[in-house]
């Protein structure tokens, strides 16, 4: 599994970098256990969870007790109120070539250097 792509921090965003254990059902990014939450039988990353689930009271067990959840909730509130766009100091902002290859049928062909690359031939183009 790819590394967790949840961005941590408030003023500067960085990659979490931990080993991903699941994929967010909403934004499809791989996330680690600390940055994923289960909501209505699907796994969401913390950011999607905070956006979709209304604030829960900080009493009793559950996300209210969790420091990561509270930090994500506060960050969501601050970014929304101040329209602040933090700087990102991670490896890459978007998904790379390796991330797309996971979805290709040929990905299973391990060791193949061209696995996942789409080969387009002139015959594929048709006149319209």
């Amino acid at each position, binding site marked *: 599994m790819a590394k967790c792509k949840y961005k941590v921090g*408030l*003023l*500067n965003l*960085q990659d979490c970098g931990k080993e991903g254990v699941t994929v967010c059902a909403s934004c499809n990014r791989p996330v680690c256990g600390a940055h994923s939450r289960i909501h209505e039988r699907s796994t969401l990353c913390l950011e999607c969870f905070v956006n979709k689930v209304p604030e829960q009271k900080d009493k009793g067990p559950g996300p209210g007790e969790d420091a990561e959840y509270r*930090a994500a909730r*506060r960050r969501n509130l*601050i970014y929304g*109120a101040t329209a*602040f766009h933090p*700087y990102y100091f991670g490896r890459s902002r978007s998904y790379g070539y390796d991330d797309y290859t996971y979805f290709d049928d040929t990905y299973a062909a391990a060791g193949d250097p061209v696995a996942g690359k789409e080969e387009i031939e002139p015959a594929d183009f048709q006149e319209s």
Partner: protein
Amino acid sequence: MKKATHKLLDPILREHKMSGTWKADDVRNILQELETYDIAVARKKKISLAVCIISFVVAIVPLFVGFFYLLPLALVGIVFIFLFRRYRSFDIDDQVRLFVKPMVESLQYDVKKDAYISVDIELLPLDNNKYLTNKGEPYAAGAYPKCCDYTYKRDFLKLKIPLVDGNKLAIGVDELLTKTEKTKTNPRGKTKTKYKYAKKTGYSLELKVNTERFSVSRPAAVNKIAEGAPEINVAKKDGATVVTGSFTVKSKEKSAGKAEICSDPVILLGGLTQLYAALKPATTK
């Protein structure tokens, strides 16, 4: 509690002040332990107060009427009165767990790894006599013939944090509390006292900019600064570019015993993001 954290916590609780330089992880651990301690003390305080009240009703009052077999229960009540007073002296300002801890939690990934943070936090509640700076002359107001204003002032928080992007952040919070005590006697001869609290919290933020990474764009002049929005200034200090921001928040509380009108970490962090909004990557000068 970890032994190492326990060692750190002892002098802090003795002096009612968290002052020194620690690693970011240690600061978070200490704040976590202070929260646990504060919650435990608050629970014990509540229990001892309940026992005091129950024993007063069940034992101490009937004792005067002649029910001497209730003497042991009355003694238990008296012991709990002393316990309650003792626990009250251990009380930590709620702002430590409701304002400082969430703020440090939110900034944990922005702090430079293994860097030392300079911390200065007052742990006693704001309406403690230690911070009393002025007691006004008694005056009459409406139905209350005896009113008095008390003013409390302190520098609650000072933090100096080296950030992961090379900037250095300094946060300061000072507080001014005015407690108004109003006393009147009702027709049945009972004396009633009401309290009103007005608090003014001043936040000051200072960002020493790492010019290798960031350049500063002077923010557009704002005619009227909204509450919670910092007034941003850019200056040169000792050859370094420093972005400063300061703002005040006023709050009022009517209920008695609620002197701890807590500051909101979101307001301070929001102000901080606005300071950061004045920065641009150095490559796009």
